[in-house]
């Protein structure tokens, strides 16, 4: 009775490429989990998965260099995190991972994650980052809850997270998602209700008094991911987030473009003008000129002025 809970890898077949994206399910149907086919859990042995993780070479030295894959706002597919996936030394431990660039110009959306559980399960962590690759959210043990199989849905550790796109130009908008696991998650296990008990509950009969099954937490697994964008008419009508400040809090800084290099002629012009103002003993004008020079990108005008003033 090895594999009780596996589900048909229908989507898997349709989306063999990790990110093929299956947008064939109508949105209103796929919002009911029980009507949505879940993929079969990966058949992996805990030992071989742990060995593979130990042996895996680390892909990148910082979050900034993770290989992000763009996904569409109607994405629905299976994320396979196995030994063919890149590995990274997260602060929470080394892990295989998949990294995604989230839709930027869509309406707000919900991401549903279902990590399929059989004899083993990858207990997921999810990391969200803003456009500057600063971490906004870290989801783990408390956020991924076991939800038993129902209808076509398999046994899985599930989480739903909402990503806001009310203001598309908000620099704090979350732009990246990383799915991985952690040492803490791998130390745990998931209890799965015995299918004979699920049957009994559905039929209103007395469940057999037997032990439930255990899924070991392992470094490899398959996570069904569905992105559900807000409906056309929904977003503005449903939500208003009152703006509170221009946003330096929580590390949200407007990404500043480096100013184009200042032409030597411009530099010379400002120094000349500053000299002229000083010659007229108009210190205020000289300061204004130095500020103006700084605004066009010439940071050297101010020290130049101060130097002149000190000499006097």
């Amino acid at each position, binding site marked *: 009775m090895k594999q009780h*809970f596996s*589900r*048909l890898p229908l989507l898997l077949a349709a989306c063999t490429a990790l990110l093929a994206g299956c947008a064939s399910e109508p949105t209103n149907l796929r919002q009911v989990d029980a009507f949505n086919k879940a993929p079969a859990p990966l058949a992996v042995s805990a030992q071989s998965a742990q060995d593979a993780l130990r042996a895996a070479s680390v892909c990148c030295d910082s979050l900034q260099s993770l290989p992000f894959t763009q996904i569409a706002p109607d994405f629905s597919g299976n994320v396979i995190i196995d030994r063919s996936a890149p590995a990274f030394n997260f602060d929470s431990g080394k892990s295989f991972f998949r990294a995604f660039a989230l839709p930027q110009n869509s309406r707000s959306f919900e991401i549903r994650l279902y990590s399929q559980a059989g004899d083993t399960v990858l207990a997921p962590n999810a990391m969200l980052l803003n456009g500057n690759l600063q971490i906004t959210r*870290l989801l783990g043990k408390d956020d991924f809850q076991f939800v038993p199989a129902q209808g076509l849905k398999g046994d899985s550790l599930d989480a739903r997270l909402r990503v806001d796109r009310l203001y598309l130009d908000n620099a704090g908008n979350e732009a990246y998602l990383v799915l991985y696991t952690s040492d803490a998650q791998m130390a745990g296990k998931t209890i799965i209700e015995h*299918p004979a008990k699920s*049957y009994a509950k559905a039929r*209103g009969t007395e469940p*057999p*008094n037997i032990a439930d099954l255990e899924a070991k937490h392992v470094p490899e697994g398959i996570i069904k991911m569905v992105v559900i964008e807000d409906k056309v008419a929904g977003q503005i009508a449903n939500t208003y987030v009152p703006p509170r400040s221009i946003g330096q809090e*929580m590390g949200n800084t407007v990404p500043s473009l480096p100013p184009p290099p200042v032409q030597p002629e411009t530099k010379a012009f400002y120094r000349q003008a500053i000299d002229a103002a000083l010659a007229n003993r108009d210190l205020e004008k000289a300061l204004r000129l130095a500020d103006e020079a700084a605004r066009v990108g010439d940071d050297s005008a101010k020290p130049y002025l101060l130097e002149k003033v000190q000499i006097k």
Partner: protein
Amino acid sequence: MNTKKPAFLLKPSAALAALLVAAPAMAVDFHGYMRSGIGATGGGGDQACFQAKGAGAKYRLGNECETYAEVGLGQELWKEGDQSFYVDSMIAYKSNQANDWEATDSKNGNSDNPYENGTSSIRQFNVQGKNVLSMLPGATLWAGKRYYKRHDVHINDYYYWDVSGPGAGIEDIDLGFAKAHVAWMRNTDGNWTYNGAGTGTNVANDTFDFRLTDINVNTDGKLEVGYDYGKANLTDEQEKDPGYTDNKGHLVTLEHTQGNWFGGFNKLALQYGTDGIIGSTGRNNTGNSDGKMIRLVNQGVIGLTDDIEMMYVQIYEDKDLDNNDGQEWLSLGVRPVYKWDNVMSTAFEFGYDQVDPQADGKETIDLKKFTIAQQWSAGRSFWARPQIRVFATYAMWDGDEYNAASESIETGEDDGLTFGVQAEAWW
């Protein structure tokens, strides 16, 4: 890498989180069951279904001729700390699957009119109050119509311990070594037609049900002990009926469940019943003859290999009645399922029923049923549903004694072949 957020930012989100936690409790639980399909009999006609005369059940794979569905909606309506109230409901529907239009308001579910053979039934409406009795922490007080701790055998749809009906009780009383459950259940006999004063009135029967469950007896093994006392609850008029005999009954059930059993589990139940309770599976009936009954039901689902799961059942029931109308019933069945992959499997079912009437001179009858089915289901497990199956069924019996077929097969025939496609789901 954990971002440390300023405390003031957590306050509003904590309030929001509390709202979100409450949300799942407000979701409606949609439970149910259905089976439906289409079939035919070799030689022509609608699908026949085969059951040995007098047997308590029939093996069901490729041998169900009706559409049956249960639709259940439940919701936790209130929760505060450990205390909660849950409302459950279920309506059942049945029809002969003969037509598109099968009215559910027909007076008789098996009406000859093929457009009016449907019927519906109010099967469950109850409220369960968890932890509301302060002196019994962990216990649930409940009342209403309910499927009450029914024990069944899946492959022949046989309920050997079922006192379901209108009732009230307290369940999950923690005794330390076991959990105790007490209930008062009702069932009613049809018109009492004895030629006395009580003619034409219904007889209300009570069953008082006591159970001890979760008794540890061996590794992965649990014991359940049950006692049912059934008795008619007579009106003054019925009491005065000179022909009425107050038909009480006792039923004792012992059941052992063994987990970790060849990759599955085994359930062995032993029952001893007397008088009024014999005719049913825990409910009292006033029309019964006195007597005694012993019943043994052994069943299980095991994993023979990674790819083969099998359910099996053995039933022996001896009803020894004072009026000589009793019988011995022996039933053996197996359903091995070979899984080709995560979706497709092949199931084989063999069922044997033998009924030996108590009266001298009456012939013993038997029925053998074979079914092969190709199945497609949502997952590999024996229990995986929804499932669609294409089946062929062959049954044989002694046509000189009786006709085991429900229809399409002439009296006197000794065997029958049917085939069809059926869907089954529970959720």
